[in-house]
């Protein structure tokens, strides 16, 4: 609404209250938060207020039964500022130490919650002004995080473990408060290997993975080793930044890669590769990328950290629902974020994709989003670090896992937001049909015929 318009004009149309939209309808369409989240937040606040006013369960139930929940809330809102409470809750209850934050990300679909939280307003909803900054590679994201240029960053889930242990850098206490995504990777091979679908035929192949300390590296090694190939002797594995992978595949420098999306789908889109297996088929539900921050940030700015974690969990919960995926793909595809054709991002997120072999595949959980940082996942990663000689000597698996993966913080944040965290932080997994028991990590490492230790 223009400041020059006549506010006493009785014929004036009911316009948008914030002045940025043409009509009230448009204003509502733009300012309404995703309703499911809204309802959940409102339920949490209303429940808390009711419980505070009527601490006695029996009295509360009696009152509600007598007048009905709607009337009860309407009555309470006469003397209690419910709307303000809802807003205050959404904004985070305690004063934030810092509201302007910088979060680094690598332009891959694993970073979806971190990226989408910016254009879709999840950071703003928790009172934060976050700049999401595209970063050129994992080593740079590590260095910029260690240099405190970033307050928090998108990392590969093994990286906070490696940084804390001092593998590949100085040991600095690092944390991983939330998992970004589960599944969402694939093994892509060059089109000329169409008829070599059996990994036993891969001797002498050159593969690329994004980083040494990555699920990609461990999953590729696991996969070929299960098929009887020694990843250190029978094939070559190089660390190559994702954007170079497609170019290298086209130039015939590599035979394939286990990479994050949209790289796999981009190779198909450009007609240079086909998707051999999704990482989901190796370990359904495996963690991949992480939301990470230094222990120092977590300790020095607990309220800011909490608000940021909530924004990420909020976005992750939103991203986990299939019906939101197309909208998310459109939000994160532009040049400011992933810089990819929308159809490529959409194929990854919706799971309806061209496989490069002439078929349209439908795998809705090709990539999924689940924030809970299971300690058992950290233990699995550590067993693979041990298996391939990245860490030597004895490892206190449980201790490292519990120091780095902040399952308690995540559970608390999830509870406050009305989401249900799991009761335990250790779970059993089946990786290519082989059982992993997090209570016996050393036995698990020793059970592999192909290993470096």
């Amino acid at each position, binding site marked *: 609404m223009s400041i020059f318009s006549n506010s006493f004009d009785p014929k004036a149309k009911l316009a948008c209250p914030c002045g940025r939209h043409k009509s009230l309808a448009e204003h509502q369409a733009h300012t309404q938060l995703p309703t499911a989240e809204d309802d959940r937040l409102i339920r949490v606040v209303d429940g808390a207020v009711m419980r505070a006013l009527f601490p006695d369960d029996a009295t509360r139930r009696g009152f509600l039964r007598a007048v009905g929940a709607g009337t009860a809330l309407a009555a309470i809102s006469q003397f209690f500022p419910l709307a303000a409470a809802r807003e205050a809750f959404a904004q985070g209850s305690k004063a934030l130490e810092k509201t302007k934050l910088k979060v680094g990300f690598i332009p891959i679909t694993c970073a979806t919650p971190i990226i989408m939280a910016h254009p879709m307003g999840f950071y703003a909803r928790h009172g934060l002004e976050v700049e*999401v*900054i595209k970063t050129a590679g994992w080593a740079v994201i590590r*260095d910029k995080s260690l240099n405190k240029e970033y307050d928090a960053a998108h990392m590969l889930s093994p990286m906070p473990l490696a940084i804390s242990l001092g593998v590949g850098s100085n040991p600095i206490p690092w944390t991983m408060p939330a998992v970004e995504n589960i599944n969402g990777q694939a093994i892509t091979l060059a089109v000329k290997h169409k008829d070599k679908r059996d990994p036993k035929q891969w001797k002498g192949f050159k593969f690329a993975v994004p980083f040494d300390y990555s699920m990609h590296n461990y999953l590729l090694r696991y996969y070929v080793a299960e098929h009887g190939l020694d990843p250190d002797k029978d094939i070559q594995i190089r660390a190559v930044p994702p954007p170079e992978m*497609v170019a290298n595949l086209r130039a015939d420098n590599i035979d394939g890669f286990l990479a994050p999306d949209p790289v796999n789908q981009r190779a*198909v889109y450009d007609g240079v590769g086909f998707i051999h297996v999704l990482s989901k088929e190796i370990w359904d539900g495996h963690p991949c990328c992480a939301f990470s921050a230094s222990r120092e940030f977590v300790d020095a700015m607990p309220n800011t950290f909490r608000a940021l974690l909530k924004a990420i969990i909020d976005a992750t919960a939103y991203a986990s629902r299939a019906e939101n995926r197309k909208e998310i793909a459109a939000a994160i595809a*532009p040049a*400011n974020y992933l*810089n990819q054709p929308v159809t490529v991002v959409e194929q990854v997120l919706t799971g309806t994709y061209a496989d490069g072999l002439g078929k349209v595949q439908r795998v809705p959980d090709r990539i999924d989003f689940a924030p809970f940082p299971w300690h058992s996942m950290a233990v699995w990663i550590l067993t693979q670090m041990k298996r391939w000689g990245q860490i030597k000597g004895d490892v206190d698996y449980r201790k490292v896992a519990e120091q780095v993966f902040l399952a308690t913080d995540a559970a608390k944040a999830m509870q406050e937001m009305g989401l249900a965290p799991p009761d335990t932080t250790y779970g059993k997994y089946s990786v290519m049909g082989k059982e992993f028991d997090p209570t016996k990590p050393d036995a698990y490492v020793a059970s592999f015929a192909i290993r470096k230790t």
Partner: protein
Amino acid sequence: MSSLALGARAAVVSLAILAMFLAFWHLGTLGTGPGAVMDSEYAKLMGATATTGQSAMPGPSQVGHKLWEHLTNPFYDNGPNDKGIGIQLAYSLARVLAGYAIAVALALPLGFAIGMSPLIYQALDPFIQVLRPISPLAWMPLALYTIKDSGLSAIFVIFICSVWPMLLNTAFGVATVRREWLNVARTLEVGRFRLAFAVILPAAAPTIMTGMRISISIAWLVIVAAEMLVGGTGIGYFVWNEWNNLSITNVVIAILAIGVVGMILDQTLGRVARLVTYPE
């Protein structure tokens, strides 16, 4: 034949070469017609390279079209990771000028001292020779690790790579000022300070300018590599971001822009060099 006629003829030949280059480029990147047969749902999910057999390399018309888009809107700002090519070039130029200014401030006085004293010259020479050929990419991790700021690291890398030619040329220019001129000055009992500024500096100026000109070219070479590595802003980041998108069209445009700006920087210093040169 007058020089004007020669210039005109050269221009004609230049244009002919350009036309031939564009023609070959156009022919070389023409599509091969429809690609493999695929059903319509599948085809919708695939890119033009796979469906129409279009070359992965863009043709000159595509590049021209995209270039026009960039030129008509060079200063747009869509957030921290998507800015117009004009803004990116400005970031890169600012970094180059900062690193280069530090290099000038250090190389000229130090080069002067080295040139005046054969002892310092010979003592420092081995260090300079070892440090000179180190690539900017090799300095980058070290800079990031010690300076702990990616912006400053980029400036440091420009400084460290562009300082050597200036230092060596200044030292060489100062050391090879003609003996007779120094002797004349000494006969006239000119003070050391005045000797440096009134005799040596003007005499060595052309050589110093040559060094500065080589250095600015190196600085401009370095910035692209540095920004590709640390990202954020700048024309090097632009190249990386478009590479990420596998957009060869935009990479070609960036290369063109880098070339043009590099030429302008070199020509500017070339003009200055002509001003300080004098006929003997």
